[in-house]
């Protein structure tokens, strides 16, 4: 399964039409210690790049934007008591939520792993 990234440092991994969403390791590192994750409401319907969730660290409060359009079908409720999971495993166990993706063609507007790595180099 391939992972795709947004310019705002969210990632999405698609299995069928189920899209798992999180923030990138780079973003987690930049935020520093994560202290709170505002999980989205189950059933919430979002458009691509709309605000999906929120995240707070010792440094800042930020919005998390949805990499694809869809409906929230699962949230990672482990993050309620252990938001530090995002620091420990941003691109795996620290996933934020799963969406039922509305249109997989939207992945074309995202970066693949190699393109995202290039993008990060450009930010340095």
């Amino acid at each position, binding site marked *: 399964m391939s992972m795709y990234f947004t310019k705002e440092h969210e990632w999405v991994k698609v299995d069928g039409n189920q899209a798992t969403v999180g923030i990138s390791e780079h973003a987690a590192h930049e935020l*520093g*210690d994560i*202290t*709170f994750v*505002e999980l989205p409401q189950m059933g919430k319907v979002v458009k691509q790049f709309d*605000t999906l969730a*929120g995240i*707070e660290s*010792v*440094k*800042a*409060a930020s*919005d998390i934007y949805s990499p694809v359009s869809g409906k929230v079908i699962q949230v990672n409720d482990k993050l309620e008591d252990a*938001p530090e999971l995002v620091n420990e495993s941003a691109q795996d166990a620290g996933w934020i939520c799963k969406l039922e993706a509305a249109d997989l063609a939207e992945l074309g507007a995202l970066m693949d792993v190699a393109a995202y790595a290039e993008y990060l180099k450009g930010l340095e």
Partner: protein
Amino acid sequence: MEEMKATPLRAHHESLKALMAPFGGWLMPIQYAGIIAEHKWCREQAALFDICHMGEFLFQGDIVADGLEDVFTFSVQGIPVGRSRYGFLLNAAGGVIDDLIVFRLAEDRVMIVVNAATIANDFAVIRSRLKEGANFTDVSDQTAKLDLQGPLSREVLVGLFGAEIGTIPFFKFITTKILGVDAIVSRTGYTGELGYEIFLPADKVCELWELLLKDPRVAPAGLGSRDLLRLEVGYSLYGSDLDESTTPLAAGLSSFVNLSKEFVGKDALVKEQQAGPARVKVAFRVSSRRAPRHHYEIFQDGAPVGSVTSGAFSPMLGCGIGLGYLKPEAAALGTKLVIKHERVEMEAEVVELPFYAGGSLRS
């Protein structure tokens, strides 16, 4: 733009891969291992902070005749030799120009420790209030300051520099030799833990830093964890919780103001005391892990009543905590508040300080 200043330890911080950021005109280490890890280390072990950016002034002379007695909100003459006192330098309106600590080094000798961003202005203001020709000098550049804070700080320092350090009571200090040079070791700090502030010549600070870090009980900590540690015990941060538009009365710090003596700003404080302050500093606890942050707005029953001046997620309490200034009618203990900023919203309740009282401060 004014050039960013750096402490003598800059290369040491960079070699430890610290995240460096501007603070009060200085390039300072914000974190090394991480803010929460360093916070925990300070509450459990001994954390080492580079505080060389703070300012030190020396006064030598007759405290009363040279005018120093009337400069601050407390009596300098009344501080016994070997003791220090916390208080304020005020403007004529009673606003806080700086919060500072005065160390009584001898009958006729005093060291004043001030915040980094306010060094130049503080020096000019104090100078202008002293008698012409008084012996008053800014020794900030020659003076380094390291803070070692945490429950194990005493045994670390006693092991390295001898038993006398172990006998210093809270808010007392000794002058001693460290690495062969004159140093001041003070039982003060900004963390709520047992801890020491060490003042020594700037050219010796790298050696002391390296020596302290060789001890496995000691780890470096940055200004990020320092801010969290001080907030948990309710200490004010100058520039956030205190400024020239804030009086010590509004800030709830009247115990550091002696209205039975003369000082600039006294008349304004007396008037404010009679009328009651227009806004007061309150402490509040959030009902979730959300952190209130500087400038977030505070509401009571839907009406705006003030704003946040400091806030964070508290690792010790497991929830958000903060300080802010509110209309007095919203400041009573137990008052329910709502704190908002853009999409972020949290419920909070006015509580007593300190948020965290379990520290080793007086142990």
